[in-house]
């Protein structure tokens, strides 16, 4: 099992949807630079544990939907596979809301429904 700690490995202040919105802290940056490579590095039947409450106070839905559901939307993985491969973890009960939202965005995403066009960081 591999672990991806958003607060430690990515940012304690994840914001925005695209790189053009929030530089390195956007959902696009999280998906392209962290989630996608980590998922691709998993062995067969290996699970990726994603810790969502370590140092992070909150998330916007623009970040969560782009970061997680984007994996399905841009055709990197089907929602069934993604839901099977990740496990959302938290210790702070307040983050149950965000876990439900992440799983909901993935479940609602349409596979390969959009072509990914990278955006440029906001300057």
């Amino acid at each position, binding site marked *: 099992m591999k672990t991806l700690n958003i607060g430690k490995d990515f940012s304690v202040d994840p914001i925005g949807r695209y790189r053009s919105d929030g530089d390195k802290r956007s959902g696009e940056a999280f998906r392209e630079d962290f989630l996608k490579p980590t998922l691709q590095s998993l062995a067969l039947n290996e699970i990726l544990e994603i810790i969502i409450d370590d140092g992070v106070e909150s998330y*916007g839905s623009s970040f969560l939907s782009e970061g997680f559901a984007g994996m399905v939307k841009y055709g990197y993985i089907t929602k069934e596979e993604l839901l099977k491969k990740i496990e959302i973890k938290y210790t702070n009960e*307040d983050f149950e809301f965000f876990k439900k939202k992440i799983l909901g965005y993935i479940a609602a995403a349409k596979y390969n429904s959009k072509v990914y066009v990278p955006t440029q960081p906001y300057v």
Partner: protein
Amino acid sequence: MLLQNTTLKSTFLHSPMFEYACTFSSLQLCNACPEYSALINENILTNEKLRVSIDLLNATLLRQENNINVFTPYIPIIAVIIGSIAAYFFTRYHWSFSEKKKIEADHLGKISTLISDIEKISIGYWIEAHNKDDVENEIYIKSKIKLLAKYVKNIGKEQESKKNDLNDFASNLYDLVTGDDFESHNRMASKNKAGLIAFLCADILANISSHK
């Protein structure tokens, strides 16, 4: 005859003559005046019935007196104690029920105030394009929606339908307010989104006040 009418009978009954007549044997009386004999016989019968009734009553009272056991004197005390205990539990139940209702109403009041705050900040945020106040508003919006989710989570199971309504609302509000170009430097004003937020909040506030 001398005593044929009612007035005369009444006079006779209250006269010394009647007392005198009463000392006669019934046979003498029967022979003397058969009308008064019948009346007296009737009185004797009535008295006899009265005596039997009194005997019966005495016998019953005597039986009751014999049936009294050691607990009999305590029956009123026991009744008072049972009544007091019942009153205590009823009062306690009523008090805890009222307290629970008050706490629920207070909790819903807090949720209503919080929703109004989120509504005000969110509408102000989306009615204008990206500006210098965005960072502050984004922080408030995210923290208050998180707090709303926490408040909703704390609603008791006995208010399941209200909890479900508020959960759906919090989820929809989160998608609406923090979706699209939220936290983007390229964010454009969206009066349509501001209007949707206002209607969504108005609906749930009406729902909450109907539950209070």
